[in-house]
């Protein structure tokens, strides 16, 4: 009896082919979609392992967290500026007239179970998202990964940065609290300051004079639908280009312009990257558990006649606020018109110039270096002193503008006068980037001349011979150093297993 069953089972297994039921299902899929060849190629794709290539993943996975937590929040948030009387669990606001937007955000924070965690994760993930994009962009810039053929990816990435910053601003303005509402007023005035079209633009975007009833509902649809769609689409394009053009890599250790060395997509890279997704989620959740962010109940609802001191925007808008603070009070009034230069220049022209230079950088660099070659190998930052120094100078400029947005906090903390803090900022914003360039340039030149910089040193074991002579033998002490003694090899199509001695009974034993 059991023999019959066994034979049937054996026959079934035989019919299923060497890969069993899974193989059969894959074949069915291939019949319909033709994915076998492409799928195999995809899974063989090699990803270089350098740690700095994972910075973009921080951004990607923060975005995933934003999407997940954001969807949760959309179930509870009410994007309306109609007023209600607050009667929720937060007693200090009981009886106050507030907007539906603020009321629903309070509801999320105090009534919906897990709501406060989701809100805080959403906000922390956004701060990390923009930070990761900036850090990733810096890595791409300093290693020259934007060069041919990747200029389009650079453009897409830069657009993603702008969209991320914009969406963040729209998002934290949704609860209509005192702090973010002030930011909306400032945004309105910035729009107003644009010559010729400013007042029209402001009236049309906001649906009338400030505050307008259309502000929060329009911000909402931009924040949850239009911009996320754009971001998703561009992220998809960004990743598609990355897969199609293959990742760049640093030179050395068998890596050339014509190959990619690293780990295969499946299973190694998938394991690492999925694990990293969990880590990003975990750290965001831990941050949200222990560090409070955007406590709108302490700020209260927005009222156009109310204002708080020490109000700054979220960090990624800080450079704009700093520029607005330190700019002199220039204005043009003549011929029946006004141009608010002290708003228009720092808030529109300055970021316009910065971003346009960034967009044009691959083109500019091609023109200046007369280098139209395809590059898949990266530069060490110190190999390109001019580019690195320029990037450092811009980063210093942006950092100083960001610090300038906290002039009042700095003045209060260090017990110096507000006026002298402001003047100090005005001077530092010009001086520090100017001296940062030659300093960075010099450091790069120094590092170029110093061989072995950046490489991990191999320790030596020093021993003394009987004659008193000292002998040093290098000893690699890190496991990874041993690993890289191996030459890279193509991903195996199959793995040869030693044939076992066949056993009469038909049962196969395998040595473990």
């Amino acid at each position: 009896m059991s023999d019959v069953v066994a034979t049937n089972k054996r026959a079934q297994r035989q019919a299923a082919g060497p890969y069993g039921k899974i193989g059969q299902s894959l074949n069915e899929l291939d019949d319909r979609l033709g994915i076998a060849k492409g799928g195999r190629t995809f899974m063989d794709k090699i990803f270089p392992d350098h740690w700095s290539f994972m910075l973009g993943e921080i951004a990607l996975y923060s975005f995933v967290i934003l999407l997940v937590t954001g969807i949760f929040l959309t179930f509870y948030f009410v994007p309306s500026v109609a007023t209600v009387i607050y009667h929720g669990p937060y007693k200090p606001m009981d009886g106050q007239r507030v907007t539906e937007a603020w009321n629903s955000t309070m509801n999320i924070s105090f009534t919906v179970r897990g709501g406060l965690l989701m809100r805080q994760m959403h906000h922390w993930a956004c701060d990390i998202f923009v930070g990761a994009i900036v850090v990733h962009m810096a890595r791409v810039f300093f290693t020259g990964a934007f060069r041919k053929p990747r200029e389009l990816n650079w453009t897409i990435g830069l657009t993603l940065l702008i969209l991320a910053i914009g969406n963040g601003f729209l998002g934290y303005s949704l609860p209509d609290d005192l702090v973010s509402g002030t930011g909306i007023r400032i945004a309105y005035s910035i729009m107003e300051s644009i010559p010729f079209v400013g007042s029209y633009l402001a009236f049309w975007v906001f649906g009338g004079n400030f505050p307008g009833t259309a502000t929060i509902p329009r911000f909402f649809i931009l924040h949850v639908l239009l911009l996320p769609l754009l971001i998703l689409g561009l992220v998809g394009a960004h990743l598609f280009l990355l897969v199609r053009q293959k990742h760049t890599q640093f030179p050395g250790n068998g890596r050339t312009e014509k190959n990619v060395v690293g780990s295969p997509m499946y299973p190694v890279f998938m394991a690492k990257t999925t694990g990293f997704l969990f880590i990003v989620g975990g750290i965001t959740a831990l941050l949200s558990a222990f560090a409070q962010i955007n406590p709108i109940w302490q700020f209260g609802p927005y009222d156009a006649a109310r204002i708080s001191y020490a109000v700054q925007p979220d960090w990624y808008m800080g450079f704009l606020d700093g520029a607005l603070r330190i700019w002199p009070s220039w204005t043009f009034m003549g011929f029946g018109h006004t141009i608010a230069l002290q708003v228009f220049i720092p808030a529109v022209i300055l970021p316009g110039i910065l971003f346009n230079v960034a967009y044009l950088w691959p083109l500019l660099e091609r023109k200046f270096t007369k280098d139209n070659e395809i590059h898949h190998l990266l530069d060490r930052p110190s190999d390109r002193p001019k580019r690195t120094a320029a990037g450092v100078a811009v980063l210093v400029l942006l950092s100083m503008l960001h610090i300038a947005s906290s002039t009042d906090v700095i003045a209060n903390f260090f017990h110096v006068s507000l006026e002298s803090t402001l003047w100090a900022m005005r001077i530092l914003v010009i001086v520090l980037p100017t001296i940062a360039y030659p300093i960075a340039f010099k450091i790069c030149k120094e590092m170029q001349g110093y061989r072995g910089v950046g490489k991990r040193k191999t320790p030596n074991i020093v021993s003394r011979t009987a004659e008193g002579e000292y002998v040093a033998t290098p000893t690699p002490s890190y496991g990874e150093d041993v690993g890289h003694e191996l030459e890279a090899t193509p991903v195996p199509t199959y793995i040869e297993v030693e044939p076992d001695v066949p056993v009469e009974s038909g049962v196969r034993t395998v040595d473990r």
Partner: protein
Amino acid sequence: MNVTTSFLRRVPLIVAAGFLSAAPILLFVGSANANNLNPPPTTRKNAGTPNSTIVVKDKNGNVIEYGNKYITYKAPSSSLNSLGKALFMENCASCHGSGANGVPANGTSGAYPNLVGLGPATITFWIDSGRMPAKDVAAIQARRGQPALTPTQATAIAAWVNSLSPSYPDIPTPHLKNANVADGAALFALNCAACHTIEGDGDALASSTFSPSLRNIPAFQVVEAIRTGPANMPRFTGNLSDQQVADITKYVTTEIQHPNNPGGFGLGGLGPVAEGFVGLLLGLGLLILVCYWIGDRS
């Protein structure tokens, strides 16, 4: 083109501002002038003057207590006058003069504030908050600190100074049971947050002045500060009723001093500045360290 002319017009003002910020004495000149005009108390009812619901007089017809169910103001007992005079001569007269009029012995008029006619609550506020006697006379603005005199001593000094020219407000006792903290939040946001920040932490103001933190101030001193307008703080007299002042006081002593932080550590109430710091340094920084662990370093 108006840029040049508007700038030139502003130069003398910039010079004046610089001068003002460098010379603390000039500040006191400003206040002395204002005080010499003897600000008339408000005519509004229940706004910190004896024009209130409850008025208690002594046998001579002097008002010794007034107020309502929100705040009651009590005049310092005249029996403290002699103690107050002695204490004043010992601790205050070297600057404020033996007549409390801001003219010290050998000094010029207007060198220090004239204390006459400011009301008892002004005097007790400055002494009880430890700002007077001044620990650093050259400082642009005195800071809150350990008081050098006991509350009784402060009341005594206030009694004597007030006896020179009786005025208001008297020393307040707020009755916060009757106050509404939600109304207080709205009033605080409209009237106080512009200087003290919505979290009540204080911040730097013009010419090295600053608005102090409200985290450590007892309730009655909140009322005193609001009603008397110490230093650069505006005076809130007839623009806020006692009920509104009590509401604000309740808000300050509950929500500002014991904030509700269900989301975790409050990060000092500094708002997005601190949040950006923590998010980037802690969050992003940790994640970059994790990248360093996961990836290669060659």
